[in-house]
């Protein structure tokens, strides 16, 4: 048997396509021939390599499908977001226009009855004409009934017709209207007790053209307004006190700038604060030009810590609360998977605390992962971490 035939036989053996008798003979030879064993082994490795390669190619293809689909999903999401935003903006615009139309512009609101009045005058005139030309119709295409229409219009807005005819009121009457003593000229649609002067003031629309023309204000202190502080070092486990904060503004040029984390009482030139006890601080940044930022609340938290409890063996979570001024502190313990609140306790001063793995009612909690959160009075997180109960 030459090498080619032997290779074919090895391939067939590995693939399981040899006839039963051939397979038995091959197995016998394999048991006696170390050369054949080596050839089989190396072929097996070569096959595994090819299969591995094919599997990787297959996974690569699936990964490609996944990435493309994710991209498409993101794009769809983005499109929907823009569509939603556009719809919202459109609705807001329509709403604003409607609101403005109905309540915002007295001239618009008032124009309607006056216009109606003048129309009715015109119609009255037209109706007079209609007496002589019966084929004339109204805008709705209905044949006009001069007597009826005239009666309706005059019943609805008799004073409007009158006022529209009188372009200028006598001064004494105008004064009486403005001081409220003369209500006879108040449009029937207005409540009788409405103060017309206030109504005018309230309903006069703001002069938006003026706002558009205003130049944007240049804030000389803008360069320091965006500065925040980042933590360089969070001390762990409610123990150490030497945290580190650094003010960051996206630029490294702090020339002529001073920093305070106690609300502006003490300033330093370096943006880095060392040996800072975790807690809540008020960041103020000042420039030599006399600009000060408003105090901005920042928190230097403790680093996350993990504790293991074995309550059955009297191994509990025992801690000493930190020496900070920001009491009361609130402790929350929750079940990690479900988020169920297990313990909620408030501490008004520094003290020791021990959690034995029970809830507030004293019920022993099961084995598993829990997490704890210490909160400052303003609800900011001072420390958090994981608790694992082993039973």
């Amino acid at each position, binding site marked *: 048997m030459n090498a080619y035939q032997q290779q074919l036989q090895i391939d067939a053996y590995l693939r399981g396509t040899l006839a039963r008798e051939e397979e038995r003979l091959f197995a016998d030879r394999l048991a006696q021939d170390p050369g054949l064993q080596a050839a089989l082994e190396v072929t097996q*490795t*070569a096959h595994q390599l090819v299969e591995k390669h094919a*599997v990787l190619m297959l996974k690569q293809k699936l990964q490609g499908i996944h990435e493309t689909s994710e991209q498409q999903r993101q794009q769809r999401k983005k499109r929907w977001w823009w569509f939603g935003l556009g719809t919202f903006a459109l609705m807001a615009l329509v709403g604003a226009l409607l609101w403005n139309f109905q309540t915002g512009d007295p001239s618009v609101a008032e124009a309607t009855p006056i216009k109606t009045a003048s129309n009715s005058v015109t119609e009255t005139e037209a109706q007079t004409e209609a007496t002589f030309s019966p084929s004339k119709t109204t805008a709705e295409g209905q044949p006009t009934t001069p007597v009826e229409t005239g009666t309706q219009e005059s019943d609805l807005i008799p004073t409007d017709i009158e006022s529209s005819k009188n372009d200028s009121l006598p001064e004494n009457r105008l004064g009486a209207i403005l001081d409220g003593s003369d209500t006879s000229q108040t449009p029937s649609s207005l409540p009788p007790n409405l103060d017309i002067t206030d109504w005018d003031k309230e309903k006069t629309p703001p002069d938006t053209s003026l706002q558009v023309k205003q130049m944007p204000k240049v804030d000389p202190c803008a360069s320091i307004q965006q500065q925040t502080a980042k933590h360089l070092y969070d001390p762990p486990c409610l123990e150490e006190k030497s945290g580190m904060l650094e003010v960051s503004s996206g630029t490294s040029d702090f020339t002529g700038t001073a920093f305070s984390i106690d609300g502006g009482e003490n300033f330093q030139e370096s943006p880095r604060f060392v040996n800072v006890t975790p807690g809540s601080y008020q960041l103020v940044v000042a420039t030599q030009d006399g600009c000060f930022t408003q105090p901005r609340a920042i928190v230097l938290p403790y680093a996350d810590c993990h504790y293991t409890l074995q309550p059955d063996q009297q191994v509990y979570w025992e801690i000493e609360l930190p020496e900070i001024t920001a009491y009361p502190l609130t402790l929350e313990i929750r079940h990690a998977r479900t988020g169920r609140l297990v313990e909620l306790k408030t501490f008004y001063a520094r003290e020791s605390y021990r959690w034995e793995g029970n809830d507030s009612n004293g019920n022993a909690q099961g084995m598993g992962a829990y997490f704890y959160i210490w909160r400052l009075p303003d609800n900011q997180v001072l420390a958090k971490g994981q608790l694992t109960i082993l039973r």
Partner: protein
Amino acid sequence: MKKRFSDQEIVAAIQGGNADRELQFLYDTTQKKIRAYILRNNGSISEAQDIFQDAVVALFQKVLKREFDLQKSIDGFLFSVARNAWITRAKRINRTVNNGIAMASQKMANQDHYLNQTIDKEHREKVLQLLDRIGERCKELLTYSVFYRMPMEEIAHRMGFSGANAAKSQNYKCKQKLIRLVNDHQHLKTTLFK
């Protein structure tokens, strides 16, 4: 509207070595279920994708070895493989916690996942580099004959050989090339297939 494929069509496409559209179909249908299951059970999207890929590889291997029973649905097969794989992974994580070796089980699982991804990446690069040495055509031919278990007639037809014998002879030459490569890299077996 995307085309739906029957299980028979998917199996035929896998055996034919060209199942791109079918893979997209499986991604659009079964992957969603697997992802929902894994996310519901504290997994991540990337873990769900890994598990789905492994399940599809298992399906391919089963189909190519002619062991897939068409009485069962492909969707059900993939989901049950994925679920079992996820349960095995979750048990491994729990065991770690129970032994008290580590406390942050999920954190460790994630680290494990990233570590595996890194190892996989290195692994992948090694395999790809090695196979590149036998040439593109040999790689294709051996993939058809070894992984897809295609008959030589089919390979000859796909790759433009004059007939099955020519394909067989070329297959032999390519395999010898690969065997020489394996012999030159004795550590391969221990590093790649342990």
